[in-house]
């Protein structure tokens, strides 16, 4: 697939023009003065050497901007030391990529890197997060809901067969703008840059979004895998760094992983020769540990209830800024960084961001976020803390057999008999295996995967019910719909277990991680137990009334929460 077709599409061009203006602002007047490399000390990777061209790029205002984007968004409100930024993470990914390249060269029979391949990998590692906006993944979940962006991602998917994450798509666009390319080739001492002007940034862009680099009948998937793959430099860095700063004792055997990675040559289905990054069979334990660490990070940090509620508050805030025209373009998500964004509320005046609904005071909201005055949890739901109320109709096998015997006596066609037996087997199996499982799917469908727009309507509905209960209890309604938050997240993905990246004992066959250990089943089972959905209300709201309304609103009388006081501070 020719990437230039994608880049000349209307969907791409619309966003590119906006992003180009931002890149121009950032690079305007910057001329690198440094001509030497530097050693930078890092708590994860130790002393790392960066070459002259890397330092010229790192020194640029476009890259320095990452210093003010927190790596784990608002997790610092829960883990105060987790204040590290995308800047040090990007340096760390480059450090990890250097180490991977060095080990791959050492471990592989024949050095798979062609001239300047390693520099291309380091460049992609440094730039892989250049598309992140304020609060990292939080802002991408907001602009990802804009129609034009949704269309762009669909375009990527249809043309490249890759569905990049929103920040990866923005990174791709940034580094392929004319302004950035001109800046790079005119100012940065990148080795042999005149030879690679035509393809360098489309290759780096592909590596960032996870697409392979191909040349006639050869596929260099290992280059992409170092940046965006099952055990890429990004994961190697963020797992160490995020757990370290949060104070969590999570660790994987990095040395073992490095000694076991090699590039293996395979013929793919299109008869191309693919150079694939794999790990020898006896390195699979390192992959297990890596997966385990990721699961723990999701559970402890990214999906912590306080992190989820602070993110929900920021979503209200940023959508509010957007409705007021304070944030107008995609580039604004890049232009404003963490320390700027909460200051923008001052521009609200007395305008209502959501005129269809109640007034949302953005300045007050920003203050609450900054001072960590977070709403309280009044309702928590999980697979283990709910039970069905409605008695499920029991399937009576004896009775069903009697009916069938009667029908047989009176004459029944072979098709009807088959259909009846199939139904009986299905019903019996279903009853036996459902046990006390509660179907939470409709809950996720109605409350979890909805857009911000749809969620506003749901919160309004909840607010009306809560206000009614307040009135019934003779209490004054001293809140509005923006004091209520419904959060039903999806569980995290650990889908790499199906990739053929394990080199068998015969040094020939490639196996899936699942062939050794059912890693994804194990992860899914863990997730099922750890997953939680929540309703939060502002702290001045009566939690016991809010709990009753939430239970009715969410579970619709079909199920109830078991022992709620063991999960929440509610007085029932």
């Amino acid at each position, binding site marked *: 697939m020719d990437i230039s077709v994608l880049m000349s599409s209307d969907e791409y061009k619309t966003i590119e023009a906006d992003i180009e203006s931002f890149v121009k602002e950032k690079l305007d007047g910057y001329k690198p003065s440094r001509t030497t490399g530097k050693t930078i000390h890092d708590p994860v990777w130790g002393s790392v050497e960066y070459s002259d061209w890397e330092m010229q790029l790192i020194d640029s205002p476009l890259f320095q901007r990452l210093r003010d984007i927190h790596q784990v968004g608002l997790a610092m409100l829960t883990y105060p030391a987790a204040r590290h930024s995308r800047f040090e993470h990007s340096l760390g990914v480059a450090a990890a990529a250097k180490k991977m390249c060095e080990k791959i060269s050492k471990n592989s029979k024949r050095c798979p890197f062609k001239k300047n391949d390693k520099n291309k990998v380091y460049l992609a590692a440094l730039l892989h997060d250049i598309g992140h906006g304020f609060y990292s993944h939080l802002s991408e979940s907001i602009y990802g809901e804009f129609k034009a962006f949704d269309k762009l991602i669909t375009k990527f998917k249809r043309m490249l067969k890759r569905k990049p994450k929103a920040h990866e798509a923005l990174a791709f666009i940034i580094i392929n703008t004319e302004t950035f390319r001109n800046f790079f080739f005119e100012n940065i001492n990148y080795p042999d840059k005149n030879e690679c002007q035509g393809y360098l940034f489309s290759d780096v862009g592909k590596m960032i979004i996870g697409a392979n680099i191909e040349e006639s009948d050869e596929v260099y998937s290992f280059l992409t895998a170092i940046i965006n793959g099952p055990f890429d430099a990004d994961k190697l860095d963020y797992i160490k760094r995020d757990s370290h700063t949060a104070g969590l004792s999570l660790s994987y055997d990095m040395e073992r992983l490095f000694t076991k990675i090699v590039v293996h040559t395979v013929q793919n289905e299109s008869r191309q020769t693919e150079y694939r990054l794999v790990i020898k069979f006896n390195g699979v334990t390192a992959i297990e540990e890596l997966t385990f660490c990721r699961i723990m990070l999701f559970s402890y940090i990214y999906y912590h209830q306080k992190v989820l509620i602070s993110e929900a508050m920021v979503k209200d805030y940023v959508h509010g800024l957007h409705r007021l025209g304070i944030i107008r373009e995609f580039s604004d998500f890049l232009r404003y960084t963490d320390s700027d964004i909460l200051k923008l509320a001052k521009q609200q005046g007395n305008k209502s961001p959501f005129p269809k609904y109640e007034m949302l005071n953005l300045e007050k909201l920003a203050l609450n976020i900054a001072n960590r005055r977070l709403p309280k949890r009044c309702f928590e739901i999980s697979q283990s803390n709910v039970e069905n109320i409605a008695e499920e109709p029991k399937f009576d096998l004896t009775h069903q057999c009697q009916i069938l015997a009667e029908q047989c006596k009176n004459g029944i066609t072979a098709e009807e008999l088959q259909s009846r037996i199939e139904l009986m087997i299905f019903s019996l199996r279903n009853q036996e295996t459902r046990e006390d499982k509660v179907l939470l799917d409709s809950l996720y469908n109605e409350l979890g995967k909805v857009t911000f727009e749809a969620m506003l309507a749901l919160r309004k509905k909840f607010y009306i019910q809560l206000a009614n209960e307040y009135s019934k209890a003779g209490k004054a309604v001293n809140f509005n719909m923006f004091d209520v938050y419904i959060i039903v997240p999806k569980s995290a993905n650990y889908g790499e277990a199906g990739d053929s990246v394990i080199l068998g004992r015969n040094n020939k066959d490639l196996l899936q991680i699942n062939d050794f250990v*059912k890693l994804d089943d194990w992860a899914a089972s863990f997730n099922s137990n750890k997953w939680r959905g929540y309703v939060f209300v502002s702290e001045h709201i009566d939690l016991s009334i809010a709990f009753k309304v939430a239970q009715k609103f969410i579970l619709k009388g079909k199920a109830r929460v078991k022992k709620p006081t063991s999960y929440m501070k509610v007085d029932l």
Partner: protein
Amino acid sequence: MLTVLAERELTAYDFMRCLFATLAKNKRSIINKSAIVKVIYDFQEAMLRENNHDVISMFDDIEFRKGIDENVVSYDINEVINNLQTFGVVGKLNPTYDKLFIYLTEQEADEILSQYNQEVQDTMSLLAGCFAGE
């Protein structure tokens, strides 16, 4: 001003819950987990060959990665299966058992299917038919 999505198109989650509901409706309560991605991928490829754009657009939220040999991987489908497991739609009877059990009753399956238009339902019926040999 940028326009915000009012609602999502057919997501990978919608796609898979609708497929499982159709399978339950067809009284297929047990399916081979390892076959799911390949069957869906082959179906998509067939639709691509037929240039059936309406159906192809239903795959917009699902990415496949083709490996060597017949191995096809889809992080999106795996993620949705994990989520559907969390939300009680499907599950495994024990960890080493490769089969996935669909917990939906006929009535629950009907309820899910009623949330999607006829075109989606027809496509899922076609796709569910591809699981016959699995």
